[in-house]
């Protein structure tokens, strides 16, 4: 047995292949291996916790959509069509579902891996680069958001809350939303140092969920509050999903998509920068 061997495809040969590629210091083209590692760890993890993130929006749908919805009757959507209250809040809860899935993994789990498990330090001692780690971890968080969204859709269909084929666009929509939140969430988390600071994320998330036009149209607020909410990511997510689910496709969709694209790019940029600063000083 030899410890220095020269395997046909040695680690060195693999690393050298990227010698002349741009960004070789930060990216090795192997973000999928971070995903693989998470899958391995996930196989022996606690399913209850994973499930809880999925049922939460479902409970809201039951309580508000079908409970309070009975008292309210219907509302009118963005284009003035009347819809049932449950159909009005369902897309918002779908967007929230995608957000929650993405946020769980990209905030608390990332915080743990960074400060306690020292996982990123370990990964960056290999020939991986910080962008591999960022993309891999964000993809994992995104995947969870996607799974939640699909699960939520599967429950909505038999309840008659999916009126048209356009609604299927809500799934790629959920991917975009989860990607944006995961990317941004990881970037913010990478800058935080204490549990205390981490709690601020939760403090921010709950009101955003409640007031982003989730349960009622935004026009009941005074104008300045409307502007504040329109700057928040969840409002864009909800509008996007509501547009797809209720089949109101117009030019505003483009803005919501653009909002998330910016979030994704900014998140990836700052995460990579921060990981480099922390672990490749």
């Amino acid at each position, binding site marked *: 047995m030899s410890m220095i061997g020269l395997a046909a495809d040695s680690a060195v040969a693999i*690393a050298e292949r990227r010698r002349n590629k741009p960004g070789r210091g930060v990216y090795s083209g192997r973000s999928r291996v971070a995903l693989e*590692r998470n899958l391995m760890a996930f196989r022996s993890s606690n399913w209850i916790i994973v499930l809880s993130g999925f049922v939460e929006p479902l409970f809201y749908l039951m309580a508000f959509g079908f409970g309070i919805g009975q008292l309210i009757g219907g509302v009118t959507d963005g284009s003035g069509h009347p819809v049932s209250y449950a159909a009005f809040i369902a897309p918002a809860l779908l967007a929230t579902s995608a957000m929650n899935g993405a946020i769980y993994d990209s905030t608390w789990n990332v915080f743990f891996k960074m400060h306690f498990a020292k996982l990123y330090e370990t990964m960056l001692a290999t020939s991986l680069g910080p962008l591999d780690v960022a993309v891999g971890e964000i993809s994992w968080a995104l995947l969870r958001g996607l799974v939640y969204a699909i699960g939520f859709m599967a429950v909505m269909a038999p309840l008659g809350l999916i009126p048209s084929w356009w609604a299927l666009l809500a799934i790629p929509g959920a991917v975009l939303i989860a990607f944006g939140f995961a990317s941004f969430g990881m970037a913010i988390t990478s800058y935080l140092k204490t549990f205390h600071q981490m709690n601020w994320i939760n403090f921010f998330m709950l009101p955003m969920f409640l007031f982003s036009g989730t349960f009622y149209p935004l026009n009941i607020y005074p104008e300045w509050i409307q502007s504040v909410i329109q700057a928040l990511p969840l409002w864009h997510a909800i509008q996007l999903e509501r547009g797809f689910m209720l089949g109101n496709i117009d030019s505003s969709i483009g803005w919501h998509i653009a909002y998330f694209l910016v979030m994704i790019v900014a998140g990836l940029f700052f995460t990579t920068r921060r990981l480099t600063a922390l672990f490749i000083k």
Partner: protein
Amino acid sequence: MIVARGLRKVYGDFVAVDGIDFEVRKGEAFGLLGPNGAGKSTTMKMIASVSKRTGGELTILGLDPNKRGPEIRAHLGVVPQQDNLDRELKVHENLFAYGRFFGLSRKFLKTKVEELLEFAQLTEKRNAKAEELSGGMKRRLTIARGLVNEPEILMLDEPTTGLDPQARHILWDRLFRLKEQGVTLVITTHYMDEAEQLCDRLIVMDKGKIMAEGSPADLIKRFASKEVLEVRFGSSKNIEIAEQIFHLGHRTEVLPDRILIYSENGEEDLQAILKLGLEPVTSLVRRSSLEDVFLRLTGRTLVE
């Protein structure tokens, strides 16, 4: 394999490594010794290409770590001071996942992982979670993990700190085997016996500078005598008696609890003391060790 010239690392206004020169040759075991805060770990990080130097030159296998980090890291095996195994993964998965980080194929890793489990004597523990292992096993697994990419240079930062004697000896044996196979070892330690056991050549660092360089035997010859005689007269009398025996040996050192006499023949000096009519409570003649060199070079002050 590794060449450093005037290597410096500065954090803010703290100089961690202050212009050091050294060379590590192929196949040797090279040691970095020094008290806490001497700059050993910082030097290791710069070699491992996860810390950028502030000044001077550093090349690893002819490559500049500031520019070719990922390529250099593909050549290296790293065993950090604190075990940072993946607690969420099983023993064999730890090796597999780490190999994947280097981009190694699943097929290659399937056999490699088994080989490494055997090397680390962990085959029976392959399905245990990493956190369930004992300290010695964890360290062996961390070393095995560092070998997954078949590195030419293995970097070990205080490999046996915190291990019991049995676990240390097993580990030394494993490291010897690696050396026999031609792996270059770079080891930091503050255990003198470890440096004497493992290192062909070493540098003693203190406050970011190199205090001495050479083989263990060579350093002992240069900075200590052949033997050391330790005598105790009781704490209150040591200083007073020391004056009477100051002429013995090359050098005498008075500590609160004992007097050390560095000499060529400790037994002769002990007889001389007895002839003076002095009666030590205990006496011990021993071979000088790197510890004597180390303490002479870096002083006895406690580093916090």
